[in-house]
């Protein structure tokens, strides 16, 4: 039993926390204005992003350029914070994770147009079940990982435009309506050892949807539209944002340097809300450290900081408020590395970097069962994630969450079978 320790730190109101997080979308907007790499107009590029089918991997840097991609992310981040404020959702580990996940995936796949029907479906569900939007808002934010279904139906040219719009909106609403009970049910498959539970849920829904489409001879296949140039300024910009998180944490809890290590004793299994367990100060420092480590990894390995990689880094940062820390993430990453070397994958390719960073979804396995289990889980994860994208045709943006759920659901009972003694 690891109960809460009383945390002594500066108290911040919910609005103050939202204000501090709003620095991210604001600076994204500002950064987008200063960096421009394509000759096309901003509005044309925004239209390109909004009308892109958005299936894996569609990098919005490639589709609409850096300025429009950052504008889209700023819009989505601002919208998320507005919704959290509007429905009075507590700014805790899960809502911080949801905010950064939406922010990150707005660089590849999500935009205000394709997430809109999902929220409409969620609102209908609330009305039908007579519950408040506040209760399901976080699930809806995560469920936008299925937004490519909406874009695919509307803009892939499969149907005439009027029918396409009706189908896209209709399926989006349906996802919003069914996602809450399905996602809650899926947790029991992996017992909370996969942090991206919605990724697993979305993988199941995506597989069913794609299979139905394929039965009608409509092919949905993953694509590979990825930006391949590095921008030094973007690396510096991101590093500054992560340093900001560390300074924010120190500002909230002056004793954070001595107390940071207390976070490493948590296995990280869902529900591990660091804001409740160790306070906001240590949580923000952990997020900043995980962000800097992820960025450093990408730079040292010689990878490209494109839209999908940016999404992976921001998702790691977000979930560092809800279960991830350097200790439980390390051994899973090591497992992915060992498997990558064994299978002969190029470590600095975008796909490989995504697998390494997103593999931390199963960090709780290492946190709970130790380094060896973590390494084996990481190896299994790589084997799966490189093969399951085709199953759902790339319409589930959280491909690693899908894989992580399968690994955890398969591997954890096996570890249990070998465990001896105990009550």
């Amino acid at each position, binding site marked *: 039993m690891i109960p809460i320790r*009383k945390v002594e730190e500066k108290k911040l109101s919910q609005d103050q926390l939202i204000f501090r997080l709003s620095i991210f979308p604001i600076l994204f907007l500002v950064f987008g204005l200063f960096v421009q790499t394509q000759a096309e107009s901003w509005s044309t590029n925004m239209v390109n992003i909004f009308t892109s089918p958005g299936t894996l991997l569609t990098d919005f840097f490639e589709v609409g350029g850096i300025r429009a991609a950052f504008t889209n992310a700023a819009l989505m981040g601002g919208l998320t914070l507005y919704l959290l404020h509007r429905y009075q959702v507590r700014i805790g580990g899960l809502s911080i994770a949801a905010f950064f996940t939406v922010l990150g995936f707005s660089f590849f796949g999500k935009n205000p147009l394709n997430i809109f029907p999902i929220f409409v479906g969620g609102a209908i569900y609330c009305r039908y079940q007579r519950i408040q939007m506040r209760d399901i808002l976080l699930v809806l934010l995560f469920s936008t990982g299925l937004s490519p279904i909406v874009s695919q139906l509307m803009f892939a040219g499969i149907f005439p435009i009027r029918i396409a719009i009706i189908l896209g909106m209709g399926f989006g609403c349906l996802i919003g309506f069914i996602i809450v009970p399905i996602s809650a*049910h899926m947790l029991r498959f992996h017992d909370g050892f996969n942090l991206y539970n919605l990724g697993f849920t979305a993988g199941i829904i995506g597989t069913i949807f794609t299979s139905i489409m394929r039965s009608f001879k409509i092919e949905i296949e993953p694509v590979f539209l990825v930006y391949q140039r590095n921008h030094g300024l973007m690396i510096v910009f991101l590093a500054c944002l992560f340093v900001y998180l560390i300074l924010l944490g120190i500002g909230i809890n002056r004793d954070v340097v001595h107390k940071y290590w207390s976070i490493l004793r948590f296995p990280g*299994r869902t529900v591990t809300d660091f804001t409740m367990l160790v306070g906001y100060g240590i949580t923000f420092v952990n997020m900043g450290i995980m962000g800097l480590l992820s960025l450093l990894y990408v730079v040292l390995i010689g990878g490209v900081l494109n839209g999908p990689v940016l999404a992976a880094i921001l998702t790691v940062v977000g979930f560092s408020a809800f279960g991830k820390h350097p200790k439980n993430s390390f051994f899973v990453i090591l497992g992915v590395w060992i498997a990558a070397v064994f299978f002969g994958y190029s470590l600095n390719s975008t796909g490989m970097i995504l697998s390494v960073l997103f593999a931390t979804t199963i960090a709780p396995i290492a946190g709970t069962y130790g380094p060896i289990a973590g390494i084996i889980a990481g190896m299994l994860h790589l084997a799966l994630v490189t093969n399951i994208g085709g199953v759902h045709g790339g319409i589930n943006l959280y491909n690693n969450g899908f894989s992580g759920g399968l690994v955890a659901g398969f591997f954890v009972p096996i570890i249990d079978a070998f465990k001896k003694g105990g009550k």
Partner: protein
Amino acid sequence: MRHEVKKISRIVDELTTMLLKDDTNEVDFKIKMDLKQTVITIVDYHSRCDEKKIERLRESLSIQRQHEMEEYYWQLAGESDCDDELTLVGAMIDEATIELKDGNLHIQLIRYRE
């Protein structure tokens, strides 16, 4: 509120697992539901918990009710025996009282219905 009875069962399941695993071998549970609230009363006999542990348990269970956490994660409560979900139980209840009397740990949890 949907799945109300099931959610109460999960809270009881989680606490049963925790108490029998970490503290004692004799526990009483009483659950009283009415239109306004559900009261769960637990007596954990011959408790080995010291004041420090009780204080930490009190803090874990006294975090504010969080509906968004409950709606998404309630099915995880009571699922695992390698780790506890006290944070989740804390997010599913409105009030918690924990006292040590004559060597027995008395816990009362209140969950309001909306």
